[in-house]
């Protein structure tokens, strides 16, 4: 086992334990006494109409799609940004090529209005 990750594991266990403890404690300290009015859906004082889980605009989906693509781009950028100072001009040219491709795609997306909300 790699000892570097042990603190993260321990913190994860403590965090989960804290969350569980809080839930149990809040359940014990504040006894739930549900009534009909209390357990109604909150809707500014009037009965809620229909369900909340309606269809959502597709914009959210599309923004997320572009996010994933740029995120993967960033994941490609990191490994060699790390060793960038050692690369010299070869690294700079390589970076220019990569950034041109990325910037080209980005500029296209901007031009066709994919980035408008």
């Amino acid at each position, binding site marked *: 086992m790699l000892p570097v990750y042990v603190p*993260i594991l321990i913190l994860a266990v403590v965090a989960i334990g804290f969350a569980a403890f809080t839930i149990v404690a809040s359940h014990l300290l504040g006894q739930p006494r549900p009534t009909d009015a209390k357990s109604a859906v909150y809707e500014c004082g009037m009965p809620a109409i229909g369900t909340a889980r309606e269809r959502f605009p597709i914009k959210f989906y599309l923004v997320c799609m572009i996010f994933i693509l740029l995120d993967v781009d960033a994941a490609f950028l990191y490994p060699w*940004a790390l060793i960038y100072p050692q690369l010299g001009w070869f690294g700079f040219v390589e970076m220019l090529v990569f950034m041109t491709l990325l910037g080209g795609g980005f500029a296209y997306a901007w031009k066709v209005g994919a980035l408008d909300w």
Partner: protein
Amino acid sequence: MDALLRLFSLIPGWDQNVPAWASISLAGLLAAGLCLGFISLGPVGYVYVERKLAGFMQDRLGPMRVGPWGLLQTIADTIKLLFKEAIFPAAVNRPLFVVAPCLVVIGAFMGFAVLPFSPTWQGTDLDVGAFYVIAIGSLSTVGLIMAGWASNNKYALFGAMRSAAQIVSYEIPAVMSLIVVVMIAGSLSLQQIVAAQAGGLHNWFLWKFFPLNVIAFLVFFTATLAECNRTPFDIPEAESELVAGFHTEYSGFFFAMFFLAEYTEMFVASAMVSVLFLGGFAAPLPVLQTVAGFDIGPVWLIAKAWALVFVHMWLRWTLPRLRVDQLMHVAWKVLLPIALFLIVVIGGLLTAPATAGGFPWDPWFGWPLTALLCGYLMLTALRAWRWHARQVREAVA
């Protein structure tokens, strides 16, 4: 954790009698306990400070009733929240409704594992530390959207969807401007990033390649501000249109957990900004790094992070909220192009031998500008205080 392990070794006979796994887990639990204490007690202070600040900025007094100057107000609030029942509305999806706040809290906590408080006071020095903090934050995003879905409430679901879209949009500029720092430092390990900025204020990455890195700092700070869902980027919980956003249906301590997570995220984000740009635990003057032989790195990191938390609060009570389309515009069409441009320019500057170590004028800007900024802030605070005192005098008279 290293510091704790070393403390254990000082106890006579510890190394011989206690197995390694036991002392590692004991040190880990102690460190995690320290973090937990800091995290869970911190918001009590933050909320009080935020309410007081809001009061001063809006020319009122803020909490005054409970305790002297209202000091016990948030403690009373916490106790009240603990004893309140958690309401489960009939329409909610119970398992997800319970798991969601836990995920948000865990996602906010986990960032603490790599925050460097000093060369030895750190959970663990991961090779991918800076990347880890950003990656683990996605847990909170999933928690928020889970909360919105489980609540089965229109406001909650809208808030959650907006918040997820906002966080993913601002993650890109954050990740891209982080690359600038990574290129300069040549490392993702937070310990090494701080080490690269040691030796005083003029060495901080903020003042390197002046004024380019100042822009990178602003991009990163804005992006982290947006990822914490704070004003002017708080449309996920815009109370004028969405009641309370994703936590509309939450009450009692579940509600408190969202707040805990929000303030913890604020602290982690601010600490990250100070590690990446403001030298982390490195003092502005090397002389100030130790007091009586003790390394006071943690004090410096916490002070810097709190200063940035103060800026978060200041912005909240100063700027109006953005609209959704303006929000997206800022992320995609302002911050992201700037970040990409900075990567190319700073990449070129780093490659050219003449500027590889920064511009020749870099050492001359850090101190004067910092002094100017601090002086201006103090003057403004003084004037605000005198104005406030005069208002009080006139009201009494």
